[in-house]
Each structure stands twice: as C-alpha cells, then as structure tokens.
C-alpha cells in the first residue's frame, strides 16, 4: 500500500465537506477557496478543486454569479444554496461523530 495514496484518499474524502464549510456564511471565488484550503494544507495541487466545484454546482449544492473585479476579468463567486446548507449541516453532524470515533479509537 502506498502511503501517499492513502493520504491523498483521506484528504479527498473530506475535501467536499471543507469546501462547503468555507463557503458557509461567505461567498468566495475559486482563488479564495484555494487560499483557505492551501493554508490548511488540505490541497497539494490546485487542479483538484475545479472538478469538485463543478460537481457540487451540478448537484445543486452550490451556485455562482459573475462579479466585476478591479484587477482583471470578472470572477466567479460561489455561494451555498439552501440544499447546500442542509447538506452541510448533515455533514457537520457526521464529521463530529466521525471525529469523536477516530479520537476514541486512536487514543
């Protein structure tokens, strides 16, 4: 078993949850989302996020609007939809349960 592979799988598993959490209460555009994820060392390369964003959008969890930018072309701002908010709430519960379980087991 490849350790890098396992790490990547772990990260990828929680990535969707983290993206939704980042957008909770604040609309952001792709680069800002990337910034937060990279700060948290959740993302190694940026390419991973674009298919994810599109998938979340297609699933109706996210919506986006175009906004003019002072520097450069217009930006795509992502926001949680109502479905997205409910989805996130449920993931919150699951994550907390999971976190406790993992802590309990690895203690």
């Amino acid at each position, binding site marked *: *078993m*490849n350790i*890098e*592979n396992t790490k990547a*799988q772990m990260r*990828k*598993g929680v*990535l969707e949850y983290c993206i939704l959490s980042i957008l909770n209460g604040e609309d952001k555009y*792709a*680069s800002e989302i*990337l910034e937060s994820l990279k700060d948290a060392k959740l993302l*190694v*390369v*940026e*390419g*991973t996020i*674009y*298919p*994810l*964003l*599109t*998938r979340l*959008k*297609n699933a109706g969890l996210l919506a986006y609007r175009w906004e003019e930018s002072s*520097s*450069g*072309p217009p930006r*795509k701002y992502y926001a949680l939809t109502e479905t997205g908010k409910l989805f996130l709430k449920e993931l919150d519960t699951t994550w907390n349960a999971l976190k406790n379980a993992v802590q309990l087991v690895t203690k």
Partner: protein
Amino acid sequence: MNKTLTINLANSIFNIDENAYQALQRYLEAVKKYLTGTQGNEEILADVEARISELFSEKLTTEKQVIILQDVEQIIQVMGQPEDYSIDEDIFDETPKSNTKTSTRVKKLYRDGDQKLMGGVCSGIGHYLSIDPLWIRLLFIVFLFGGGFSVITYIILWAIVPEASTTAQKLDMQGEAANLSNIEKKIKEGFDSVADTVKNADYKGVENAVKDGGNSFVKALGDFIGVIFSTIGKIISTVFNLFGKFIGLLLILIGSATLLGLFFGLFTVGILDLSNLSGVQFFPLVNASELPIWLLSILLFLAIGIPFYGLLYIGLTVITKNLKKMGNITKVSLFSIWFVSVGCLIFYGIKQANSFSVRGNQIEQISLIDGNSTGIQVPDTLYLKAKSSEHFEYLNHNYFDGITMSYDTNGNEVLYSKRVSVNIKNTVDNSVSIKTYKSANGYSYEEAKNRASALLYNVEQIGKTIYFDDYFTSAPHQKMRNQKIEMSLIIPNGTVVKIDPSMSEMMGWENKNDQDMYRKDLHNETWRMGNNGVLECMTCNSSMD
C-alpha cells in the same frame, strides 16, 4: 532572442514565449483529454484557464512582460498533473495512478456498441489491434467451421468485456496503438528535446563566454544518451508487453478449447443420455452407485472445467487489463464448487473400487455318466464340442472386459459374456462329471456369491458328445463385476478325448499335456487321460520327441 506569441487566456491578453506556449498547450490538452467524459468538463476547463490566467498576471511585472517556459512549469506544479483532476469515482481505487507526464492513453479492450453486428466484440478487438474489424469477423467465421470454437470464445468475451459507453471509454478503446509510427513519434519527441537542449546550451555558451561551453556540450551529450536509453527501454517494454499478450492468448486458447471439449464430450453424452452409443452403454453396467450418468458428467465437467476456466480468466486478464473483476464471492464459490465436485468424484471412485473388493464363487457339480451306480459303461472315447448361440452370435458386440450388454430373443436387455473356460482333469472313479466354478466380485462375499450363482449357463451330454455353451448370460441389474465361469471336465483315467475345433477358444490354461502344446492347439490331436492327470498324445508323431 525568442519568438513571442500573443494569446488570449480567459479574456486576458498575454505575451508568451513560443516554447512556453507549447508547454501550456500540451498541458491544457492533457487536462482536457483527461476530463473527457466527466460531467461539465468544458466548464471545468474554463475555470482552470481562468485560474492560470490569474497566476500569469501575478508573474508579470513592469520589468517582466513575457511569460517564459519556467513560469508555465511552475504553474503546472501548482495546478497539478492531469491525474490530479480526477476526484470522482476513483477516490478509493487501490491501484495508484501512474505519474506519467505524457498524456498518452493506454489502450483498453472494450466492446464497440457503435459498430456492432452482434455484441461489438469483433469491432472492439479490431480497435484494440488497430485493424479493420472485418478481419476479426472473418477469423471468427473461419474458426466457426473449425469446431465451433469461436462461438464459445465470442460468448465469453461478450459476457466479460465491458461495452464502451462513455466518451472516455470510447477514447480508451481507440487509444494510441503501440505501433511503429508511435514509437517513431516518441523517438522524434526525444530528439526534439535534445535539439532544444543544444540550442539552450549555445545561448548560455555565448553568455558565459568560453568557461561553461564545454560543460554545456557534455550536458547535451548526456541528455542525448539518456534519450537513446529511454527509447531502447520503451522498445524493450513494448516487446515484453507483446510477449505477455502472446502467453495470455495461449492461455485463452487452452482454456476455451478444453472447456469446449468438455462441454461437448460430457454434456451432450450426459444430459442427452446417448446411452445407445457404443462405450456409453457400458456405463450403467460398470457404475456401482446409483449416480446417474448426467450427474457424473456435470461433476466431471466442474472438477476439470473450473481449473481451466481459471486459466482462461488469467489469460483474459493479461490481454485486456480492464476486465470485470471477479468478485471474492465468485472466487470462493467457484472454488467451493470445484472442491465439492472433486470430493464427490473421489467418494464415487472409492465406492466404485469398493464394489469390486471381494470375490465370491459358487461351485456346482453335475454327474453326467456314473458308471459306478448306473452300471452303464463309460464310453472309451468322448467328444467335446462348443455350442454357441445363433441369436447372440448374430448381434454385434463391443466387449468391455469380456462382458457386454445385449438383447435376448424377446428384446430384453441381458448381460452376455464369453468368459468361459474348460479344463480336463482325471479321476480314479468310473464316472464322468463336470464341476462348474462360477465367480464374481462384489462389496461383500455374500453379494459376490449371489451374483456368481445368478449366472445362467448350460452344458449338455448327448451320447458320447458333451456340448459346452461358449457363453453365459445374467440379468443386467447384476452389472459387470468380473463374472467368469471355469469348468472342470472330470474323466476316468484312460479315457480318450477328441476336442472339436470349436472348443479351441474355450480350452483353459490348466490342461496339462505331454507335448507342451498350446491350449488352443489341443484340438488338432487325439488325447488319452494318463494316470497322473496329464493328457497323452495318441496321434503325435513320435519322432517329434
């Protein structure tokens, strides 16, 4: 000095070096190819371009107006390889993604639903081998006449090989073939990069005057050698790949041919119960248990067929790589079925052997002429003749260990055998008698003895002639269990015996004679029973001694 292009990336204008542009274009192409088939791929690609455009803007300052190759390389590192763009289905895929930087697709075997006549197997193979499916179809048809081999192969491939449904799978199916022109292309790519390095070396050489010129040349040479080695490596791996495929093909051939042979050999005979075929008709006679022939056929098919199915499967995995994986449940149940059938066969075999384990016999004695009690003169010359059944002789028989299944005059099944032998022995009494030893095998002595006594046999005396039947019969339910009849004709010393030629096959091994003559030749001479039980030749030429 480098040539610069102007590009429009996500509605922003950039000046970019030609080689940087090529690198960027290759990267975007690779990502695009990788995302083919993913939902919303164009949107993703637009987002990626927008991000790259943003990153480009960050790289540019008033002093630096042009995007160079290094910038593009850095951005590719930030964005990740094309494989990193996959997030959906393969998250928990155990097999690590290969980190090749090139975007060449590995060709996979799929069924082509767009060009199909039946299941799209032939056109799929055609894509895989980069030849017109017509040839594959022709091959299948040719094999069709060569014993129907292709039918099974086709059905198995139809069942196992998935159909290309998504665009990505269709591209995989057509892929890039490992043919000569591609190898050539790879080599050419290698040379191009060498040429680039040489160019760069020249450029640096001017900058750093004489100092580094030599080193740059050495570096270029090193790169060149590296390219040659990697090319050779690629060719070798291609050859090995082909060799592996050949082995795989061989396994498929062996596996499917055996399965086909078993199928026709056992299933047709067993299921259709073609028991009037010669060979098969012995089965119920030999069979010890109540196991019906179709069940035995299925057991044999499973016990032999499953391992060969395994071979076939291994061959297919070597050839196709993207085979539907055999689930653990399937594996375990196949193994259990195999194990059980082998177990049943062993049990059956033991039972079969057991039914021959004990030999039993039945001895009957008939007095033909008793000179002591009846006062009738025992004739000084006896004639021995064999009597065969006109009815049974007329029928054709395939003997199995000397016994066969036949039909009596009423058309009922009957066991029929010619395992009858006659030995001539002496007695001091003035009487002629016959001892009949009937014997057979069975589970127990009792069973064997009963089977032996059930043998029907006739011997008859008319005047001076004794007629021996050259056959015996028994009921078919008695089965073939090594039944045999041996007779002793017991005659007083001094009796003369004339053996008819019809007896030659029946004469036993225990007929002692003073000429050491072979038992089948005894009928050529006239014999007299000596006092020591040895037949003395009366007509032999004494000069022979």
